[in-house]
């Protein structure tokens, strides 16, 4: 691993440390403190925006593991999120489990369900697998609409989580549930990719034949990647259900899954910070379009009264195309270049 000049690892612990220097510990603690103080100082709108941002980050982290690290493109992430949301809703309302038990259970259930998504990878790969996951999306959504336990087209109303008599029923309160889980999941993903499993994923992505020759069981690791990614999607879906307090199939469309893939590309495949960059950039862009569109509608009457949906799609599509053509390695790569140039200043290389 790369180290700045004059920094030496003297013990095994230092070499393996997740956060290496006291300065980094300080920066981390300070930024987490600032993050947790946000609801005290910022508007309700901003806090609910951060909530959706954090949930999206969890979903895209899962997608990063299966697509960015293991190289298996999945368009099923929205459906897996729906499975997580529904399973947690069923666990809490029908079986009477507490939210805190239902969340990990929903994640595990979705992970097991996601093995169905990974199953075709035994026979197909690449683009064919991607389209198979689109098929899995539609079949899953159809099942959710037609099974009795998922409330058919009515959906399921969901209770907010609670500890004792304290109910997390506003966006500000849910913030303290969602953000710690998001941080935990980020830590998990960041740590996973430097373990044996994570390196096996990268090997499968870069050259599957070489990976197999080195003794990596391809099918096992592909399924494992799908399991972990669906675990993330399931947890995010469960959080989403308890935040909006309703489970409905229309919350989880194929378009959402396509947006997640887009965020991943804008941020950069194969990088955990890239997930944050991608999600934040795309979501902020979306919010900007929402802000701008009423003015645009008054200046240019022909675009109609509600151009936000169409404009948002177009803006996202253009940004995505620009990144694919101009910077396929995403914002994370730019970030690394920027860090290196600051470190090396005043030298060019």
């Amino acid at each position, binding site marked *: 691993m790369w180290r700045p000049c004059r920094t030496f690892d003297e013990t095994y612990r230092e070499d393996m440390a997740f956060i290496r220097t006291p300065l980094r510990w300080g920066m981390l603690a300070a930024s987490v403190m600032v993050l947790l103080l946000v609801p005290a100082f910022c508007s309700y709108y901003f806090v609910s925006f951060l909530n959706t941002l954090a949930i999206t980050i969890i979903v895209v982290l899962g997608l990063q593991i299966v697509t960015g690290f293991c190289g298996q493109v999945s368009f099923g992430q929205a459906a897996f999120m729906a499975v997580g949301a529904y399973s947690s809703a069923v666990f809490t309302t029908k079986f009477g489990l507490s939210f805190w038990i239902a969340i990990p259970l929903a994640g595990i259930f979705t992970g097991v369900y996601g093995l169905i998504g990974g199953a*075709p990878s035994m026979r197909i790969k690449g683009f064919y697998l991607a389209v198979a996951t689109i098929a899995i999306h539609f079949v899953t959504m159809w099942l959710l609409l037609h099974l009795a336990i998922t409330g058919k087209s009515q959906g399921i109303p969901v209770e907010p989580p609670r500890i004792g008599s304290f109910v997390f029923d506003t966006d500000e309160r849910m913030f303290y549930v969602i953000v710690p889980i998001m941080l935990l999941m980020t830590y998990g993903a960041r740590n996973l990719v430097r373990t044996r499993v994570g390196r096996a994923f990268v090997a499968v992505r870069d050259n599957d034949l070489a990976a197999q020759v080195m003794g990596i069981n391809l099918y096992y690791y592909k399924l494992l990647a799908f399991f972990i990614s669906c675990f993330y999607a399931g947890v995010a879906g469960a959080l989403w259900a308890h935040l909006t307090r309703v489970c409905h199939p229309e919350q989880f469309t194929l378009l959402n899954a396509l947006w997640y893939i887009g965020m991943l590309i804008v941020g950069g495949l194969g990088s955990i910070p890239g997930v944050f960059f991608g999600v934040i950039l795309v979501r902020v862009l979306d919010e900007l379009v929402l802000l701008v569109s009423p003015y645009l509608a008054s200046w240019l009457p022909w675009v109609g009264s*509600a151009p936000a949906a169409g404009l948002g799609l177009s803006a996202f599509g253009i940004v995505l195309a620009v990144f694919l053509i101009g910077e396929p390695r995403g914002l994370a790569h730019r970030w690394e270049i920027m860090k290196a140039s600051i470190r090396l200043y005043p030298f060019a290389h």
Partner: protein
Amino acid sequence: MTELWQLLLLGFLEGGLYAMVAASIVLVYKSTHVVSLAHGQFMAFGALGFWFLLVKLNLPLVVATFLALGFAGGFGWVIERVAMRPLIGQPLFAAFLTTFAVFLTMDGVFQLILKGESTSFAAHLPRGAMEISGVSLPTTQLVSFGVCILLFVGLALFYRYTKIGLGMRATAEDHQLAQSTGVTVRSIFSAIWVLSAVVAGIGGIALANVMDIYYPLPYLGIKGLIVALVGGLDSLPGALLAGLLLGVLENVSAGYLDPVVGGGVKEVAAYVLLLLVLLVKPYGILGLVLIERI
């Protein structure tokens, strides 16, 4: 029995529509090995242009058709120049995702133009229904199916006899070999995108003749992709076969299973078929089988 015939024939006619959409995707894949999501939008914009020329400007049918197809073809050319050509030599998956970005961009424009409403030009074309021993077939469907058959025959002749069609086949075999025998692969790529956009435009007009022009129209491109995969991504006869198969399957399964499971079978039949076909024959019914490790 009449009910079964009704479902079978309607499915057959609908399958022709799917086959046309699939054909445009197969055309691009055959020569460039790029799988395109953008063709749903060429379809939608072809239909939209046709509607604008026929209904808004009141042009004669033939003029409107040619202008709309020219518009779709021009669109395909622009997309190839702007989005696809910079990606030659990049991984094919990047090209696939770029067509997806193109899809999203054009979808936004499509929604801006439609403003959430739906339009239709069906009133300007022949309507009504034909009765054959108790089975009623709408004229719009019959016309669209006739267009589909003509299109496939035309494509077969084009690939068989014209110079540029032969060039496309040579390019499909091997880019470098084709280049060394004097085929300009780069202009073939342009021609392919124009041709497939025109085919998608024809499919879009035929589809909009049957359904209205509204926001799900571009998403039928995804269904076309499914049909292309089922038939084999590099096989035009496969696209026709799979399209007809899917149309029949959708209608028959919806007719008989919908009362049992409570509706919606028509939407998932295609995806269930795709999953089954991918598990049994991963390269589609008539697709070229590549020998590789998974």
